[in-house]
């Protein structure tokens, strides 16, 4: 009897824990929609921030700025990440060096983003003597690399050897096998990995604090401080003005929707694109 009672008790506790975990998520999403949706309007997407005391204004420059920084980061991070993954899966099988790279990538993944921020600050901003969009892009690119490397490697590992051997047997050189056969077969999974890494850095604020720095006005130059959506949300959230709080909620809603849409798309994409008939 006692044992059955404990069994039910623990089962109940587990269900309770799950409910307790889902609860904050629902609370966060509820507040985002409740507070954010009421502040979203056309001006939010087309105007730059209004000065203190004036109502209205939007975050158009932040959205564009985030886009520019993320594009830069993807441009640098994705090729390096995929190439490193290709090395791990195609050339480094069983080598000690590959294990070391894998391990370092996992460890690098856990390094706090703010440390990346000050490292890039010391490297680029201190040399250039001013904050820049380029520095922000580099900081985010460094954060993307380990995630992409590991997912690329895992996805390439699911490609059956028979396919590679078929290509090699036809006399296709190894580099071409890696690009046209292995990478192409694993591409749905690799795209998933890239989008997950993208979604992860899209919401990062800490590495941008001392690199992209933020900007209240339009800026398209890579060598100038640039606005970014998470940065702007941070600035507005800790400000004392109600109008800015309202914009912070709206900005968060936009950011979350962007991230969730990409994560959900990835889910659908990954499930449908999963290797059919792979071993």
């Amino acid at each position: 009897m006692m044992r059955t009672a404990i069994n039910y008790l623990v089962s109940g506790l587990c269900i309770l824990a799950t409910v307790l975990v889902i609860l904050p998520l629902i609370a966060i999403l509820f507040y985002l929609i409740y507070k954010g949706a009421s502040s979203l309007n056309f001006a939010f997407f087309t105007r730059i921030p209004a000065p203190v005391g004036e109502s209205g204004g939007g975050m158009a420059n932040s959205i564009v700025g985030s886009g520019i920084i993320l594009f830069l980061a993807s441009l640098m991070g994705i090729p390096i990440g995929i190439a490193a993954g290709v090395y791990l899966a195609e050339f480094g099988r069983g080598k000690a060096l590959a294990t070391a790279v894998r391990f370092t990538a996992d460890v690098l993944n856990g390094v706090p983003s703010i440390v990346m921020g000050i490292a890039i600050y010391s490297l680029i901003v201190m040399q250039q003597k001013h904050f820049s969009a380029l520095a922000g892009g580099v900081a985010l690119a460094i954060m993307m690399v380990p995630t992409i490397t590991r997912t690329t490697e895992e996805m390439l590992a699911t490609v059956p050897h028979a396919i590679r051997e078929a290509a090699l047997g036809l006399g296709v050189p190894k580099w071409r096998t890696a690009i046209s056969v292995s990478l192409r077969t694993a591409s749905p999974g690799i795209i998933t990995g890239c989008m997950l890494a993208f979604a992860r850095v899209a919401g990062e604020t800490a590495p941008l604090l001392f690199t992209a720095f933020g900007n209240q006005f339009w800026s398209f130059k890579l060598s100038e401080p640039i606005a970014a959506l998470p940065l702007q949300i941070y600035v507005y959230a800790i400000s004392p003005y109600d109008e800015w709080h309202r914009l912070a909620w709206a900005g968060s809603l936009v950011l979350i929707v962007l991230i969730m849409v990409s994560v959900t798309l990835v889910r659908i994409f990954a499930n449908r694109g999963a290797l059919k008939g792979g071993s």
Partner: protein
Amino acid sequence: MSSTRMTPERESRSPLPVPSPLPNAPAASSTDAASGADASLSPIRDFLSKRGSGRLADNSFAAVMLLCACSIFAIVIFIFGILVVHSRLSLMQFGWKFFTRQAWDPVSGDFGALPFIYGTIATSLLALCMAVPLALGVAVFLTELCPRPLRAPISFLTELLAAIPSVVYGLWAVFVLVPLMRDVIGPFLYKTLGWTGFFEGPNFGVGLLTASMILAIMILPIISSLTRDIMNAVPNSQREAVLALGATRWEMIRIGVLRNSRIGIVGAVMLGLGRALGETMAVTMVIGNHPDISKSLFAPGYTLASVIANEFSEATGDLYLSALIEIGLALFLVTIVVNAIARLMVWAVTRNAPARVN
């Protein structure tokens, strides 16, 4: 995984190479003979040789891939190097004492990191205390108890928690959790547990406890999803064996699942700890940002990451800046060590020994 899969494949392939040299050999010799004279004999070969099938192309491709892989080492070494170089002023001035001194006085140039270390450790450990039981509960529920149709949506929801950016957690905490803490949870804790001395002093809503709560919410999905993977790696025969001995379901989970995956669970918890140590934005927004060491969890505090986030861009003077960079260096080294240990533990369970019997 793949290396174990290789062996049966190689075995099954072994009859294949026997016939294959026969058609292959004449093909190879014909291209050797007709390499220059008769290219039309084998248009595929010709096409391939034009597309760079040579030792040079292969080797240079491998070298580029190797270079990119090594860039990951380079990143880690570069971060370490640049942090050391830029914190040398503070390293030389304060030495090891930097980490045991309480002073934080930018005006007179007197710096010590102890309050930040205290704040970081206190919030991270408190967050772990809150998150670990919940995460384990979720993982057990999802792997062992949950009805199958509910499993995917619930695990998707817990993973969504991981996708929410830090700054959005911070925003939510500032406007929802802080008032809740100030008006409901705080007074309740004071009334029931005030005698312990942990819940004393004025309660503004911001402080160590609020920061720990938001941290707990943030590290939960990492711990629970890794724990779930680890529990899934326990073979079903273990569960069946324990059930066959007449165990209840909980006893099966305790003896058959949790005991087999304990190293991995500790690893997952340490990964959560690594994340908690370095979490910046949400903590900065709700911890109160005051370099004090206080027993009360209502008191405002400061963490290593949040002092960097708050003061770095307004740091005047080289010593101030290098003290902040030294804090970053400490954070970097600590998270690297914690993550390395955690990864080794998780690897030990999910890679090599999926079916170890205790």
